[in-house]
């Protein structure tokens, strides 16, 4: 089956929703694809233990009311099936979608770095724990340590506390000087300053990072370097994330140019490839406010409404300045490159230890010798980790873009010639 749309949007987070709503009044036939069961992306993820902010509810209601916008949830992009055509898979079927214009709103994922014990049950990403909690994972009475970097640590702590966790420590790797400078700058974005104040937590420490997760069958304690001093904290859970990295895989597969580890776009949010746009975190980490305005610019531009798109440029510049501050102040301390020990697994799919990788010259060499990045996640976790640890260029995505059913792959095959 093939469906046709004027405008196809990949990702129903803030950028994707804003793009659809900006483009909808034009009357274009619009589809949004998202691999999660509900729209919202990561920041507005819905779930049994989620409390959606008012803005998220507004966007969802507006989307549901737009009769020319169709949302396909729990649907993922598998492959490029032809010119302006993608192969998709949902719970029950595989189908093709043809588009005139595409907007990539594929978001970001957490940078998850290897350290001893990071594969133990009980250890999750920081945003990862937040997502799991929204989906109903209970934390009642559990002791939690949060570590890594960025404002997401505080947001994750707030969600976990609501779900019953006892926060033991929030370890931020950035220095006190960097955090102070960041906080001073926040007066330029009063809403953000208010948010920061609301999220403040007495367990928060700067200049601190995880050294090891301890336990045999599951997590029992966390060893931290806290301002140069080693401390051990007993806990049932560790949520650890080192910032966000852009999901560029689909953009790369579509041959859109990638620069600075993000999909490159111009002032109109247009990619290097004609009729392809990108907005939100996949063009560089900047937060939901920037994603919303970028999405709206892309949506307007994609349906030829240059004037409306241009009117949003000043608003984008304001949030881009905030993103610049974030990226600068939460830059990673190079000590984090030394966390993995010889036997620490770097590739969690194929259980490849650090010692098997440290001697290799690059990603291809590592794959040939160790199967690193050749498991189901296709290097999305270890590829990003190796890019940080060894400065290796991340793997080029290959089809299928995610593990799929054989029946789905068969759709990519040419029909047999008659006779």
């Amino acid at each position: 089956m093939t469906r046709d749309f004027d405008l196809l949007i990949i990702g129903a987070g803030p950028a994707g929703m804003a793009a659809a709503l900006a483009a909808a009044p034009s009357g274009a036939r619009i589809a949004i694809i998202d691999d999660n069961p509900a729209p919202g992306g990561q920041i507005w993820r819905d779930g049994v233990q989620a409390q959606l902010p008012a803005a998220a509810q507004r966007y969802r209601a507006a989307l549901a009311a737009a009769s020319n916008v169709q949302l396909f949830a729990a649907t993922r992009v598998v492959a490029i099936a032809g010119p302006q055509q993608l192969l998709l898979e949902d719970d029950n079927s595989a189908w093709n979608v043809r588009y005139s214009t595409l907007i990539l709103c594929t978001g970001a994922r957490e940078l998850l770095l290897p350290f001893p014990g990071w594969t133990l049950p009980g250890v999750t990403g920081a945003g990862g724990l937040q997502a799991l909690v929204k989906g109903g994972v209970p934390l009642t009475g559990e002791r939690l340590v949060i570590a890594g970097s960025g404002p997401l640590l505080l947001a994750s702590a707030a969600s976990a506390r609501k779900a019953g966790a006892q926060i033991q420590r929030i370890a931020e790797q950035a220095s006190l000087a960097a955090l102070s400078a960041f906080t001073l700058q926040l007066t330029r974005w009063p809403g953000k300053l208010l948010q920061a104040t609301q999220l403040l937590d007495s367990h928060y420490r700067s200049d601190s990072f995880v050294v090891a997760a301890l336990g045999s069958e599951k997590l029992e304690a966390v060893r931290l370097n806290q301002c140069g001093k080693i401390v051990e904290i007993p806990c049932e859970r560790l949520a650890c994330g080192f910032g966000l990295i852009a999901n560029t895989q689909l953009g790369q597969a579509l041959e859109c140019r990638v620069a600075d580890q993000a999909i490159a776009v111009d002032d109109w949010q247009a990619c290097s490839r004609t009729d392809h746009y990108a907005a939100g975190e996949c063009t560089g980490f900047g937060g939901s406010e920037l994603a919303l305005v970028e999405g709206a610019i892309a949506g307007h531009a994609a349906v030829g409404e240059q004037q409306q798109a241009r009117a949003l440029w000043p608003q984008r510049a304001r949030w881009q300045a905030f993103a610049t501050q974030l990226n600068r102040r939460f830059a990673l301390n190079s000590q984090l490159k030394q966390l993995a020990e010889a036997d620490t697994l770097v590739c969690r799919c194929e259980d490849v230890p650090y010692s098997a990788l440290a001697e290799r010259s690059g990603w291809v060499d590592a794959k040939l010798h160790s199967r690193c990045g050749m498991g189901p996640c296709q290097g999305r976790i270890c590829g990003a980790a190796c890019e940080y640890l060894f400065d290796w260029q991340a793997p080029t995505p290959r089809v299928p873009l995610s593990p799929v059913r054989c029946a789905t792959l068969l759709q990519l095959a040419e029909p047999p010639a008659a006779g």
Partner: protein
Amino acid sequence: MIELSLDGQLLRVAQGTTVAAALYLGGDGNSRTSVSGQRRAPFCGMGVCQECRVSIDGQRRLACQTLCRTGMQVETQA
């Protein structure tokens, strides 16, 4: 409430609960055993790392991106 089966045991969860949450509500939270024999549990929470893959009604699916449905048969990998 939704009734599903987790490794042969009946489990009741609230509407909107993910299979990843059901793993914790009805078991030890683990989803699979790695190629070198380590027990693993949901990790990234957002459909990237593939650690939470389980068998759902006979198909390999990601627990973190699948909502529980009545009658669902979920099998973790021992």
